[in-house]
């Protein structure tokens, strides 16, 4: 299992440049928003938590089709499926590798990008906490979407159409927690609900992803 995780991490960092791409995308989205809505500090400060959440979500989405597509194309997915490791563990590992290479860097740079959007001082901690708690759910849900569309050629657009509605609850609670934090309110309720979604998806969704992958490998 650890060897597989290490292999996925090495592949993500060394080959194809998928590692830095999400971060660069996140940066660009954050830079583009002030061009779109104007440079007033108060407006930017008010929408900053939401923008950071949407940016992180889109950056996450961008790299989803890499989770399984490359292994599918060169046939290593068939080998992994016949390995003694259960498919549920495989998809969980894939999601974990995706989170380490995409979600975690996004979490870490989000406060820095908050500076660009003049996020209020109270907001830094909460954007960090809410993203750290929410992005694993994005990776797990995304792995389900990737498993669903792995057999389809040029399935990238379809993947977004399928995954984005599934992201709605995570986004609502995550952005709500970050916004309440930035405005100085209590964040306990949305954070608890966000944690519920994250742990719920981590516990249950790999079974659906594995079932879908099994159908696609048939």
């Amino acid at each position, binding site marked *: 299992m650890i060897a597989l995780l290490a292999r996925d991490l090495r592949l993500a960092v060394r080959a194809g440049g998928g590692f830095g791409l999400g971060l660069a995308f996140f940066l660009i989205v954050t830079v583009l928003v002030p061009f779109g809505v104007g440079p007033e500090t108060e407006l930017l400060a008010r929408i900053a938590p939401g923008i950071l959440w949407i940016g992180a979500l889109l950056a996450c989405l961008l790299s989803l089709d890499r989770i399984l597509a490359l292994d599918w194309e060169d046939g290593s997915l068939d080998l992994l499926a016949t390995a003694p490791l259960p498919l549920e563990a495989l998809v969980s590992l894939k999601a974990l590798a995706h989170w380490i290479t995409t979600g975690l860097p996004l979490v870490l740079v989000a406060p820095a990008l908050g500076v660009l959007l003049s996020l209020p001082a109270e907001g830094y901690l909460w954007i960090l906490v809410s993203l750290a708690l929410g992005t694993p759910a994005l990776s797990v849900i995304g792995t389900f979407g990737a498993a669903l569309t792995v057999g389809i050629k040029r399935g990238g657009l379809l993947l977004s159409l399928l995954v984005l509605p599934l992201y709605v*609850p995570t986004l609502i609670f995550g952005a709500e927690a970050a916004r309440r934090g930035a405005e100085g309110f209590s964040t306990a309720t949305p954070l608890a609900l966000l944690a519920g979604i994250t742990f719920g998806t981590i516990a249950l969704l790999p079974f659906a992803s594995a079932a879908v992958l099994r159908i696609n490998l048939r």
Partner: protein
Amino acid sequence: MEQRATASLWEWANPVKFLRLSGWLLPWVSWGAAICLAVGLVWGFFFTPDDFRQGSTVKIIYLHVPAALMAINIWIMMLVTSLIWVIRRHHVSALAAKAAAPVGVVMTAIALVTGALWGQPMWGTWWAWDPRLTSFLILFLFYLGYVALWEAIENPDTAADLTAILCLVGSVFALLSRYAVLFWNQGLHQGASLSLDAEENVHDVFYIPLLVCIAGFVLLFVALLLLRTRTEIRARRIKALQARERAA
């Protein structure tokens, strides 16, 4: 092998029997739908009084409420047929889910559009991020994703399996979204006013033609569902015949 004496529901999972039954039912259901809709809509539009505050705009209720009701119930029906397909592998069940989805898209669209038309004069806006409106928009997106996945996969059995699981997972997330949206914003939309146990309901003058319209929409959906499922079964047969001819 156990012998079942009485006709069970599962017998209609046999495509031949389904075609026979649905062929017999289809004209009845279609005419029922046409009569109910004609009576309900004409009654509702021309023979009910205007509401004292909303004026004649209240009459959009005869399209809006049945369409919204169907939009939700069609998804639930797709969920049930998907479960039947996953558990018992009856092809008719999977095809019925496939046939229902586009009807659901249209019903959701009707509910959203009529709601916007009503909202403009009443709330002064076409759209508000009200929980009910937002949930419906999300439901619309779920429908679109479901239909798109059916279209994208060539092998029909794989497509049926994948869309069934998407429907199951999607249902859970649709429910989650519903409650997340309730948490996220306060509502503008009025609460339920058709329940049997509520204290204040729509007056009978509006209620009875509305019930006729709802019956009409249900029958219309059943008619479309039967028709589309029959089409799907026949399309599947033609494909099988073509494949056999190529092989021969």
